[in-house]
């Protein structure tokens, strides 16, 4: 049979929008929540909505979702709480390993490890979730709140994360990423984009973390060469929580009071942000500080473009070696931009008039004691545009609406 083209198109569109037998599976809180919820996640098919009821779900083990195209939805980030205070096993609260998943409108509390991890899960939406360790910032809290890794297409929108002993929102080894409109408080790192490309971090409120927004590229990982990232229109305010990360982690080296920090990476633009009272440095641009052997890895920052940002205060209690003398030398506060001096003339371009400080490290891997700090005054210069588009695919927006 021949179908008219228009009818065919309409039928196809319908099929895409609503799979034939899509269903909503209600899972109320209460007795046996662990088995009931896990079973619903296992039996869900593409297009299904697993609908969590209001209330607290007392969970003893990590949950996992491995079915494509499923939505896990609660009654709101304050109404539906997945409580992992009694968790006995697994590395995270919820693990997602399938594509096209939407997680929205619920909270995760007190997981032993990470809050929600999604791995190899393309086109995932995290919308209006809350992830919290209720005892406040502690070294024994889980590492990451929201943790997508090895994925293409990530949208994290309208979430609240606090207390993570590493990063509140961590996106690793991924591309096509949007992190927007989130409230990220009292973590070691607020938002961290690591070994990732094409990320847009915009319109977030990032406060009381150790460091606000970090963009890192690290060696010896399957995916390296981070860059093409835009940090725009964020409020990065008073990130002053003492670093409580376990010492072995890369974020354990983030100075308390860092606003936006870039380590290594190729093409990162920082513009239109409001940076307020971050006591070490409003912006910190550095090379990877440790020794490495990976020949594929470039440890230097390249083409970090600093546009116009609103700078208020900051730099008045710097936690870097010799910080007090430096502060005195600069009249009571470090300038808004601190650079380790590595990466040569391609490291930085600065679009607006800005005062800076270079630590003038002699080479990559040099100890901080080898620094010979000096002030820099940047004259405005044209900055290069990012080489490509940033952000999650537009199709993900439809799944991130009230």
């Amino acid at each position, binding site marked *: 049979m021949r179908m008219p083209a228009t009818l065919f198109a309409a039928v196809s569109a319908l099929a895409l929008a609503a799979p034939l037998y899509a269903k909503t599976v209600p899972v109320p809180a209460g007795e046996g929540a662990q088995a009931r919820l*896990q079973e619903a996640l296992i039996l869900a098919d593409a297009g299904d909505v697993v609908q969590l009821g209001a209330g607290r779900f007392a969970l003893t*083990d990590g949950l996992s979702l491995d079915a494509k195209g499923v939505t896990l939805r609660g009654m709101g980030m304050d109404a539906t709480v997945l409580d992992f205070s009694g968790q006995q096993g*697994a590395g995270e609260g919820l693990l997602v390993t399938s594509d096209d998943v939407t997680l929205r409108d619920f909270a995760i509390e007190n997981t032993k490890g990470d809050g929600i991890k999604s791995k*190899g899960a393309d086109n995932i939406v995290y919308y209006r979730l809350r992830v919290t360790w209720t005892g406040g910032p502690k070294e024994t809290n889980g590492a*990451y709140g929201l943790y997508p890794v090895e994925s293409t297409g990530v949208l994290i929108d309208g979430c609240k994360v606090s207390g993570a002993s*590493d990063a509140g929102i961590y996106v690793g080894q991924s591309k096509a990423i949007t992190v927007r409109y989130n409230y990220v408080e009292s973590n070691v790192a607020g938002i961290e984009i690591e070994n990732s490309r094409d990320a847009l971090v915009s319109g977030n409120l990032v406060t009381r973390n150790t460091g606000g927004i970090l963009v890192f590229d690290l060696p010896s990982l*399957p995916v390296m060469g981070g860059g093409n990232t835009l940090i725009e229109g964020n409020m990065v305010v008073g990130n002053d929580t003492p670093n409580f990360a*376990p*010492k072995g982690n*890369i974020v354990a080296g983030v100075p308390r009071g860092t606003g936006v920090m870039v380590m290594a990476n190729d093409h990162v633009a920082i513009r239109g942000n409001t940076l307020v009272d971050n006591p070490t440095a409003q912006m910190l641009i550095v090379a990877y500080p440790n020794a490495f052997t990976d020949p594929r890895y470039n440890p230097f920052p390249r083409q970090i473009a600093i546009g116009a940002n609103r700078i208020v205060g900051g730099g008045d209690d710097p936690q870097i070696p010799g910080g007090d003398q430096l502060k005195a030398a600069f009249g009571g506060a470090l300038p808004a931009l601190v650079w380790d001096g590595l990466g040569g003339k391609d490291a930085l371009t600065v679009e607006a008039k800005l005062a800076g400080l270079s630590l003038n490290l002699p080479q990559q891997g040099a100890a901080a004691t080898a620094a010979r700090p000096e002030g820099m005054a940047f004259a405005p210069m044209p900055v290069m545009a990012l080489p490509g588009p940033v952000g999650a695919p537009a199709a993900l927006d439809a799944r991130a609406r009230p």
Partner: protein
Amino acid sequence: MRLLLAAFLTLTAACTAKAALHKTSVVNDMAVTAAAFPQTLSEYGFFTDNAAQHPAWGVTPYRLNTPLWSDGTEKLRFVYLPAGSKANAQGDGLLDLPVGAALIKTFKMQGRLIETRVLLHRAGGWTALPYVWNAQQTEAQLALAGTRINLVTPLGQAISYAVPNKNQCKECHATAGVLTPIGPKARNLSTAWLADMHAAGRLDAVPAAGRRIPLWEDRAKVPVADTARGWLDVNCAHCHKPGGAASNSGLYLGWEVADPAALGVGKRPVAAGRGAGDLAFGVVPGDPDHSILVFRMASLEGGVAMPELGRATVDPDGLAAVRAWITAMR
């Protein structure tokens, strides 16, 4: 429609023919291959006597040279091959089992049957399902969402034993998102067993003997590096490999891995969080106490303990072997 009906008739005919052909087999091939979740272990007919774990025709017991640590449980392993089919050797790697095959693993603690996990090779790929034994030891019931059971280990530790849920089975059993068996790799099977399977016509060839993972009970007699690397391969490398659940760590612990950095030597943690403790490197040669690998093996704390799934106790002998390997490392 006509096409569909024809396909259905062909399928029915094939099934009937098959059933007639293999009268001796009591295994329910449809339970293995159909896209359903049988509610009880009996439905498969893998055992002629459930409680005694006496295998049916076509179900062959096997053992691994070095097994995965599971809180000291005793494990009974079986491979089922449908009549007329055989497995194919793939060098020293995983035996290639045909569609219709199944792997069956029963966990016993202190003489009691606890759970039986089955891996079913269906037309669409492998499916993993966990079954939990009843108190009478007569039947095991599907536990899709997993469960917890209070047990006492042979070392006298009272534990909350976790039966994995269906998805957790896949966390360990996945390569690049596709479910696959882990255990029956030729390098971790005995030559004698492989030769027997070949002689019985159930294996196409005896794979060339490469460097084999040693027998665990021989660990006092073999080089400590072989013991430790065998233990790491079996306990860690199903996730810690390219395409595995821990691929993003860049820490690869397979038997064949030669790059010291991939094995953790001088390697900094990536996304370990507090799993790294206050330690800077995965493995510090000569210094197990400052090696994250040892720290995590020795931990029982969620978020720190490795492996993440499948154990509530530390494997004292495995830990000792890995410690000795790192101590001897220059």
